[in-house]
């Protein structure tokens, strides 16, 4: 096959060759598509499992598995885009229950005003109005400067910056004080990178407020339901 085939381009042979190449092409395609399809079928469950594990790991960051006993994946509802949470896309809210009683909400939020754009967060809010934990799941803050909001990058390993919000609610920190110190609030910021801290702090405050406000409506929805703002 390494040698070009000698052909004289007569019309009939053109047709014949076209057909022949089409047939060969077809044969190859069939074989290799089958190969792919087979692999796909074989790996499908594994891929699904990986995806699930990924989700659970993320949720586990903000809500320790001991805090609930229901199947979070099953007990989820759909959240249409929420401006107040900074979300432009549809997301899911997971409802944690302990012994049947509502325990916490886990949902995504976003700070649109990071130094380099959106900072994606995942937040867990307990039914008693406390923010259990918040974690950054996606950001583009300047490496080495604004990226301390992600505990993996935070130099302070023992008490990463983002853990200072854990287990606080508006009862202990009133909304006016839920700000970085530079803005007169009570949360620390890293000097030189206040913008990132401010963005996360404000976004977590908004998320907490939103969760507190809609807590009951959210738990009231059926599993796999859809949250609509204006419905009671």
């Amino acid at each position, binding site marked *: 096959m390494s040698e070009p085939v000698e052909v004289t381009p007569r019309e009939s042979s053109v047709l014949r060759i076209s057909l022949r190449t089409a047939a060969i092409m077809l044969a190859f395609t069939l074989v290799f598509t089958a190969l792919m399809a087979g692999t796909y079928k074989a790996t499908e469950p594994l891929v699904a499992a990986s995806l699930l594990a990924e989700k659970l790991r993320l949720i586990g960051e903000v809500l320790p598995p001991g805090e609930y006993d229901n199947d979070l994946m099953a007990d989820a509802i759909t959240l249409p885009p929420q401006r107040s949470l900074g979300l432009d896309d549809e997301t899911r809210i997971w409802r944690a229950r302990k012994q049947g009683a509502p325990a916490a909400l886990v949902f995504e939020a976003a700070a649109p005003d990071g130094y*380099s754009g959106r900072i994606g967060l995942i937040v867990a809010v307990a039914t008693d109005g406390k923010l259990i934990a918040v974690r950054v799941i996606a950001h583009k803050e*300047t490496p*080495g400067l604004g990226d301390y909001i992600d505990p993996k990058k935070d130099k302070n390993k023992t008490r990463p910056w983002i853990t200072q919000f854990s287990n606080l609610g508006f009862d202990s920190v009133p909304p006016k004080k839920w700000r970085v110190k530079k803005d007169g609030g009570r949360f620390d910021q890293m000097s030189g990178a206040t913008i990132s801290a401010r963005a996360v702090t404000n976004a977590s405050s908004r998320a907490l407020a939103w969760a507190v406000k809609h807590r009951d409506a959210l738990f009231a929805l059926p599993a796999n339901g859809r949250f609509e703002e204006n419905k009671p």
Partner: protein
Amino acid sequence: MNNSPYSLKPASVQSVMLRVLFALLPGLAAYVWLFGAGILVQIVLASVTALAAEAVMLKLRGKPLMMFLGDGSALVTAWLIALTFPSIAPWWLTVLGTLLAIVVAKHLYGGLGQNPFNPAMVAFALMIVAYPLLMSQWPRVGATDFAVQWEAIFGSRQVLDAVTMATPLDALRTVLRDPEQRAMIGGILGGKATFGNIGGRGWEWIAAGYFLGGLYLLQQRIITWHMPVAFLATLFAVSGAFALYEPERFAGPGFQLFTGGAMLAAFFIVTDPVSGATTPRGKLIFAAGAAVLTWIIRTFGAYPDGIAFAVLLMNIAAPLIDMYTQPPVFGHKDKRGDSP
């Protein structure tokens, strides 16, 4: 034995470079007066590093050492690095930046005269990308305590908070980033905090010093008028137009021209003959392009001062600019200067 011409005008690279250093002195004096002597430490650091790096590279490349070390170009690069870095930057930052400038940006391309990128600006861009925090901690006006600066450069950086202050450009950027704080913008642009009210918080006096030095360079015919005029005029025009359009959002020309490295750039950086455009029209395009990019990056970009990136971006375009702005040759004025 050489060939004709046998008589030559007395001129040398060294004298050109020394005059450039001399022209930097007024700006430097203002710097020391307003921000303390830390900058002198940086200049020494950068100069020593530059000369050492230059010497090592020359040796490795088998070039005559004294002839090139004495040409002064490494010193110009070193001084410009020191002047564009924060004067309280830790010592290793200056040293690393200078080293990279001389080794990578200059000698890997063949040394003096061959580098397509401005070495000083390469150093600045590399360092601000790698160490944005360290590169944006500037001393406070009047905080001239040399001991503190020395400590900041060579010792711990704990002392810093008291003596640093966001530069006007940085402050502007912070405010612009945060919608809630837009209201403060007037205060920054007014810039009444210290000396003049041109908006520089002290930086304007240094800029004036550079302006003076630039005039000297023009008078000495080391630079031509094209670059500074095109750069300053374009920056003036663009920022002026936008400031008229929406003054509460865009800083005006006074602010843009007298903050950051604008004046230094206009006379000392865009004019770098080696990495810039060389034809008369090319020089105008080069400098105007650098000004527009500077304004864009300052106004919309992630980095507070856009000069280094603007200059590097124009460096990239310089060969093409030169290629397309060849002046017509004697006798070929009707068509482009191509030979028959």
